């Protein structure tokens, strides 16, 4: 007599399809997932705690370690938030440069996403094509700031340095040539029978549920909700640029894939417009805080384990109420928000990062429970998480 028994298996943290160090405990009944429990936090570095002890410009390099696949967007998100908080206006040219950089990053991120997602599902060639084209964007980064991965190129109040004509020419050439590359990916998988079987009708989440779970970015737009922070609360030069927000309608893995492919074309369109419209002028606001700004008074309480408070400062009357601001931008993965509380010193009293990957990882059980174990892989791919950002 055969007995039926539920099997609990560990997937990750060291697993090539988990895109980092995500651990899932899967309770299986045969091939069906009964319960899925994600465990995150393996990459927790305490970015929020560290930021509370650094001045605003000093915390900037911490942010590109969050989502290392699209580091430039994280920097821009931080800079936009601090600019709104401190009332700094970036010069127009800097805004256009940042918009170009954000869209290049979106392309780089979506290329890595399609490459790894297709590799997980079994299409090897797309991975090689993707890595080839990402190299092109990393070269453009290198041309403008010297770094390829952790760039720290945007600054509070603008960008680090101006772009030269060589960059503009290369970038324009990229924008001209890249649509052909998108076609190459689509030729490989768009109508591929295996790809369709693995993605169509998998990981369905309705528009109402997607909003309720707080999904953002292409993961939400695949369910047909046209919410994009670039349109809802424009920042940088997006209010002067013409672009569309692609949405899906079947709410499944395939529609989210289509959304991202269409976004690649929109990004190219935005880059071209920015290159055409970019005005001359300063790239860093004169109000931008320098690295030599005073670190502010220590906020250490008496009897605090950090040490004794400086004499004469224990009765420091703090400004009440504190300024607080939530500011979000559209990173390739979704809505990246920074929530700041400023008490008038040069360090944030509290900085909270609303990481899209964290929210998306929490929806994995909802997507996976009741589906086959092989579809868990497709679901991890489709929500596009990077664990560095999830764990902060």
């Amino acid at each position, binding site marked *: 007599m055969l007995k039926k028994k539920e099997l609990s298996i560990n997937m990750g943290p060291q697993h090539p399809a988990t895109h980092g160090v995500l651990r899932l405990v899967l309770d299986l009944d045969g091939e069906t997932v009964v319960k899925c429990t994600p465990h995150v*936090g393996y990459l*927790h570095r305490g970015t*929020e705690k560290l930021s509370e002890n650094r001045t605003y410009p000093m915390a900037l390099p911490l942010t590109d370690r969050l989502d290392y696949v699209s580091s430039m967007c994280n920097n821009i998100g931080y800079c936009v938030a601090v600019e709104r908080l401190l009332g700094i206006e970036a010069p127009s040219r800097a805004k256009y440069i940042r918009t170009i950089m954000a869209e290049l990053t979106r392309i780089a991120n979506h290329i890595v996403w399609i490459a790894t997602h297709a590799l997980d599902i079994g299409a090897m060639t797309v991975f090689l094509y993707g890595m080839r084209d990402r190299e092109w964007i990393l070269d453009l980064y290198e041309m403008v700031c010297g770094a390829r991965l952790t760039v720290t190129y945007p600054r509070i109040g603008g960008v680090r340095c101006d772009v030269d004509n060589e960059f503009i020419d290369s970038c324009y050439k990229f924008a001209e040539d890249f649509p052909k590359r998108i076609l190459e990916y689509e030729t490989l998988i768009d109508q591929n029978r295996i790809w369709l079987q693995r993605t169509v009708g998998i990981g369905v989440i309705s528009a109402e549920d997607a909003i309720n*779970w*707080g999904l953002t970015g292409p993961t939400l737009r695949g369910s047909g*909700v046209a919410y994009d922070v670039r349109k809802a609360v424009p920042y940088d030069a997006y209010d002067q640029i013409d672009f569309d927000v692609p949405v899906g309608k079947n709410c499944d893995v395939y529609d989210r894939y289509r959304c991202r492919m269409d976004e690649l074309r929109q990004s190219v369109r935005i880059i071209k417009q920015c290159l055409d419209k970019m005005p001359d002028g300063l790239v860093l606001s004169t109000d931008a805080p320098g690295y030599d700004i005073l670190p502010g008074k220590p906020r250490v309480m008496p009897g605090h384990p950090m040490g004794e408070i400086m004499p004469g400062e224990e009765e420091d009357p703090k400004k009440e109420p504190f*300024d607080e*601001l939530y500011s979000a931008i559209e990173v390739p993965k979704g809505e990246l928000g920074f929530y700041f509380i400023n008490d008038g010193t040069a360090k944030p009293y509290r900085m909270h990062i609303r990481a899209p990957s964290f929210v998306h990882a929490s929806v994995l059980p909802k997507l996976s429970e009741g589906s086959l174990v092989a579809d868990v892989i497709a679901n991890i791919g489709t929500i596009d998480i990077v664990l560095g950002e999830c764990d902060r």
Partner: protein
Amino acid sequence: MTPVEISELLKSKFQSAILATVEFGGQVSVTINKAKLLDIMKFLKNSPELNFDYLVDLCGVDYLGRKNDRFEVVYNLRSMNHNHFIRVKAVVPENDSTISSVVDIWAGANWHERECFDMFGISFMGHPDLRRVLMPEDWEGYPLRKDYPLKSDLGEHEWKGYKEVVETAERNKQYEVR
């Protein structure tokens, strides 16, 4: 609706529970009494002219040194179809650091509340699965509290997971190739 109109509407509806409203940078924060949290949140989500269907963010804040209102839980809310935004802050005292969970209203609050519990030790009543999310399960203390040391010599209070790693490394030295 503008944020100020929303806060005025809340004030007229829940007069006693609204402690303060502050405007900064085009956003309005409404500080509320935590006893009325669920009523206010349900009103914000379900009334058609507000329809805050998207919980953008939830986090805790520690105002160390305040006597009766040490913690605050901050809810950033957005409405997808009206495209308006409001921030609600619930005051949580240190000696009773509990607050109602909003998971039943917004499913996405689940991990945010776990993170808030993990980092500040605020318990969310009615949460389906309140465990630590970012820190290890056997971690002691709440790292984002202001009285938590950034770096110090913990001595005996060192996390035991780290001690195990050091001991294993020590033990493995006998296998080193000389």
